[in-house]
């Protein structure tokens, strides 16, 4: 069947075949991955807030990094977690990884922490640990508020957490200096704020996929969140703050060029629309 292509240029601009747009986007992404033209990355106030919150944790307290993400959002949440781990190691802060959902996140975060720990010479159990996946959502948090070793039980490798040297003296959330939430799921922040940050005044910083970030700006404005990483952009900003340009900086550079393409296509579509409307007017 013959396709009826529009003849006027303004109509053709508005009806660029989607396959052509996909190919253009693919071309820009591959081009920028293989031969990048770097764009500057300036840390935003919310991203700087995450770093400042980590740096401000007293030495006798631990940081909890809750990694509620999986492979589906790894491109954004993976670099966010990695940048937070680097910020902890650089500031000599002890941290524990855990997650409430989905179970895969804790394994993926463990790989990132191990890689970074080798670089900084950090020791498992002394400088960092992995509490593993804990099922029970609110119940886990309410239990942790009173007694962390009881609520957590065994770590990722099956060792009772009270046997880990860094857990000495850690009884309840009062010994937690900061909770870093890295998540691709909504409701996790509400749980931590409602059950831990609000009642026990424990600072919380967070990292979200770009899709879900806009709804958490009010939490930032009210001071419930000390800082926030927004998607790959936030991860890239924290990477630049810790002077460790990595995956997020590379992704963000490509992303900026992809955005340029999308903006150009939007402008082109609107120009076509305006000219087509003018052409139809008597």
């Amino acid at each position, binding site marked *: 069947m013959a396709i009826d292509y529009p003849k006027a240029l303004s109509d053709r601009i508005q009806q660029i075949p989607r396959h052509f747009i996909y190919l253009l986007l693919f071309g820009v*992404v591959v081009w920028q*991955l293989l031969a990048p033209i770097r764009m500057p990355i300036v840390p935003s106030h919310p991203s700087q807030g995450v770093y400042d919150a980590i740096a401000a944790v007293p030495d006798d307290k631990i940081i909890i990094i809750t990694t509620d993400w999986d492979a589906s959002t790894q491109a954004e949440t993976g670099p966010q977690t990695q940048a937070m781990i680097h910020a902890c190691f650089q500031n000599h802060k002890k941290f524990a990884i855990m997650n409430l959902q989905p179970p895969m996140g804790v394994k993926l975060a463990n790989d990132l922490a191990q890689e970074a720990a080798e670089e900084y010479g950090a020791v498992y159990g002394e400088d960092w640990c992995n509490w593993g996946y804990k099922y029970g959502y*609110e119940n886990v948090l309410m239990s942790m508020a009173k007694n962390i070793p009881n609520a957590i039980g065994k770590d990722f490798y099956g060792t009772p957490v009270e046997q880990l040297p860094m857990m000495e003296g850690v009884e309840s959330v009062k010994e937690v200096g900061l909770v870093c939430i890295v998540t691709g799921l909504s409701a996790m922040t509400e749980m931590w704020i409602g059950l831990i940050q*609000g009642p026990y005044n424990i600072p919380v910083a967070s990292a979200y996929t770009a899709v879900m970030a*806009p709804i958490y700006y009010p939490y930032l404005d009210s001071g419930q969140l000390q800082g926030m990483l927004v998607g*790959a952009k936030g991860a890239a900003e924290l990477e630049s703050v810790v002077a460790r340009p990595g995956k997020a900086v590379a992704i963000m550079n490509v992303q900026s060029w992809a955005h340029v393409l999308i903006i150009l296509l939007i402008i082109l579509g609107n120009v076509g629309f305006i000219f087509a409307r003018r052409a139809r007017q008597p």
Partner: protein
Amino acid sequence: MNPDLFILWAAAIATLGVYTILYRENPISRLFEHIFVGLSAGYLLATTWTLNLEGKWWNPMIQDKKWYWIFAPIVGLLFYFIYSRRLGWLARLVMGLFFGAAAGTFFRQFFPIFSPQIYACFKPLGPQPGMSVEGFVFEVILHHWIFVVILLTVLSYFFFSVSHEGRFGRGLGRSALLGRWFLMIAFGAMFGNTVMARISLFIGRIRFLLFDWLGSLIPWFAQRGL
């Protein structure tokens, strides 16, 4: 075959297979879609046992001889009485229990979540003692005033109790219209973020295909990814 290499090739073939949907609906993308759904269901089933039930229910009951855990699945199975007209009340009993627990937990969380955000809406609109002119312009006028104007106009958009007629009604209508514009701008920003997130995921997959998969065949690609 090296298991890592197998995983690499399987991931690459699955990624390419799923992306064939970009051309058009086809059996290859459908095949990988079904494989993904099956894997997810299997993974969920396996992790439900290994990470939840085995440690929290089976082992305490069998190894630690805590026999009373036998009642947990019995209570859980009461949910299935929903299909019985005569014994449906048993299902409602456990549902009521769960609803009550969930409502109680949410009620406990409600005030710590929302109270600080309500307090944060009350921003000073005049110059503060010791504030510089620069601070007044950037903080009070550019931040607080814009915030309060947007807050009030958006709230007025959701105020449906007064018709937009008469002097007050027309004023409310204009405010609601402005509020609608602000909402549209906010939705535009949210949609922009959604585009950004989707492109991030796409870049993540292309990085994998170029640097990990192609890089395992042609070292030049792997070097570019370092």
